[in-house]
């Protein structure tokens, strides 16, 4: 990984490092050459790591006091909120932390989409990222069930029932998932177990995500390959550490505002009513971060096709490195893609909005158009754009903005016109 061999100065350090090269790893992480033109959209990787660790630590404490039993779960959450020392703080951080986590991950994903960070040679980083995102959604959904409020119970019922759309074995799978013939205590206990497990899977994948990142190094706003280390890079420490730290603190201010002043605004009031299998809430809505996919699910009249559409909407992202045929990474040099990018952002926001609305009338029509456009963007617009778009000239390096470069430095170097 490292360009130069690292040798610890102290004898003990050398003895240890020869047996387990942890110091070499630490040295690699601090020296890691990072493009110096990274903007603040690149700080969300660090912010996401913070979010994950916050969720794990607060979750651990909550699990010490929480009781995963259909008759006691709701009461145990109230016990945490009232009697556990600073239990209210820990729970509000955990509940709002989920929203903050998703806010950050959406910015992180859309940053990647804008600057083409998913393109060669970073496809594996991207695909691991998509798996992390899927696991995050699973963890968030399972976690939302644990307080055993009305929205927990009915959300769990709606989502697990989606599996019944699978032909022949669907009903059997649903019974198997529930551990019975309805969402009940066995469902709650297994959801708790899985909710506890998934964050550690995510943690492992995050390590792979970062490892895969450290092979080619970071992409950057102008999307060109950067020779490293060079005038175009700075060592990770202290430059990126302090910049990520500054951005993280800004993020924490927003986070703290939600936790201390509007801790329940992102949740649904019905979840403070204990689960009641006999009373269905007027509207069953998922948390805000799942709404775009909920809209896609409901926009398809057939249940099975709806589930397929919803899953495809996420899985299609994994194929993105091959659907986007453009050789230029950054949208900065792709005037047309830039327009389509913002249309996609608006499209997803519209999907989120109609996802919160009843699936009828105009809302349903909008949801259908927006769903169709979502797939159109990935399946038609992106592949064609790569061939048709007239891109603007790309600089050769970050420090010396010579125009006419290519995303691949190696090929540029071979061209005579750029020699000298």
């Amino acid at each position: 990984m490292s360009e130069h061999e690292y040798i610890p100065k102290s004898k003990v350090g050398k003895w240890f490092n020869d047996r387990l090269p942890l110091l070499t790893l630490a040295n690699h992480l601090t020296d890691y050459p990072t493009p110096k033109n990274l903007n603040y959209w690149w700080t969300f990787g660090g912010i996401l790591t913070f979010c994950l660790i916050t969720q794990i630590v607060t979750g651990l404490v909550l699990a010490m006091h929480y009781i995963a039993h259909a008759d006691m779960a709701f009461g145990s959450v109230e016990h945490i909120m009232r009697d556990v020392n600073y239990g209210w703080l820990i729970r509000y951080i955990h509940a709002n932390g989920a929203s903050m986590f998703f806010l950050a991950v959406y910015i992180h994903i859309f940053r990647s989409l804008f600057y083409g960070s998913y393109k060669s040679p970073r496809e594996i980083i991207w695909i691991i990222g998509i798996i992390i995102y899927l696991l995050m959604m699973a963890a968030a959904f399972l976690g939302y069930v644990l307080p055993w409020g009305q929205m927990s119970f009915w959300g769990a019922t709606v989502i697990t029932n989606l599996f019944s759309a699978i032909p022949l074995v669907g009903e059997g799978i649903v019974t198997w998932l529930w551990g019975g013939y309805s969402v009940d205590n066995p469902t709650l206990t297994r959801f708790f177990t899985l909710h506890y497990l998934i964050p550690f899977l995510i943690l492992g994948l995050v390590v792979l995500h970062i490892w895969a990142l450290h092979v080619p190094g970071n992409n950057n706003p102008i999307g060109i390959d950067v020779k490293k280390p060079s005038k175009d890079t700075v060592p990770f420490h202290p430059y990126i550490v302090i910049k990520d730290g500054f951005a993280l603190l800004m993020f924490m201010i927003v986070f703290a505002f939600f936790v201390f002043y509007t801790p329940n605004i992102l949740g649904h009031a019905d979840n403070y009513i204990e689960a009641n299998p006999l009373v269905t809430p007027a509207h069953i809505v998922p948390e805000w971060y799942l709404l775009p996919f909920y809209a896609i699910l409901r926009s398809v009249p057939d249940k099975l096709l709806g589930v397929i559409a919803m899953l495809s909407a996420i899985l299609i992202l994994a194929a993105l490195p091959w659907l986007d045929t453009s050789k230029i990474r950054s949208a900065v040099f792709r005037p047309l893609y830039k327009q389509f990018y913002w249309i996609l952002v608006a499209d997803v926001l519209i999907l989120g909005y109609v996802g919160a609305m009843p699936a009828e009338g105009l809302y349903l029509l909008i949801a259908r158009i927006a769903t169709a456009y979502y797939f159109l963007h990935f399946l038609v617009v992106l592949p064609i754009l790569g061939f048709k778009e007239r891109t603007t000239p790309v600089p050769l390096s970050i420090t010396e903005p010579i125009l006419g470069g290519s995303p691949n430095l190696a090929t540029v170097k071979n061209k005579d016109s750029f020699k000298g």
Partner: protein
Amino acid sequence: MKKFSRISFLIFLFIGFQLSSNAAEKVEYLKTDWSFKGPFGKFDRAALQRGYQVYQEVCSSCHSMKYLSYRNLVEKGGPEFSVEQAKAIAASFEVKDGPNADGEMFMRPGRLSDKLVMPYENEKAAQAANGGAYPPDMTVLVKARGGGVDYIYSLLQGYEDPPIGVSLDDGVYYNKYMYGNKIKMSNQLSEGLVEYSDGTNASVEQMAKDVSTFLMWTAEPHLETRHRMGFKAIVYLIILTTLVYFSMKRIWSRVKTDV
């Protein structure tokens, strides 16, 4: 920076959508000045004590408060009754305890450590006594309703004669703030219903406000601590962020790039 403002605009648009989507079905609630709103909001002690009195004398005959203990009435940030007062309140209730050495359940006066005594043995008994409707537990009721404390405050004053064309079954009442306008709880508050020990005039509005304040506290017993701690945390974060910002500027000044 232009891009940043564009994206933050979109995020705010989205949050705005979210809030308006929640607000879409809401009616305008009655407004009043809550002492606990805002970053420095605190409960009005006297209002909490009066609110407890209204709960006790009016609501508690049907509505349970099962996550609250008598000891909570003494705790800081709440009504802050004296220990003697709270002990006397607890002792005025009979609590079922046991089994004793003979294996019998027995009744004894309540203690501070007891949860508030429930009006009914169980949900079925509550329904049977209330024409099939279950009077919801009131501990977190404020957080369990979309309109929050304003909704409770308005609902208590929202009873009126049904508009022409709306027919009501026996035991169903018309309330303009209730979801669907039909409610199984009759109008509970009337002028001078309780006699406040502090001499406050017990108007319907006053009682509604006091009991809503009390319910806000039962739902969020640590609200005052939360507000205080939040202010400190955010001030601390802003100072630290400023320091880190200048350190960052200094470190990056070695590189010819803007941060």
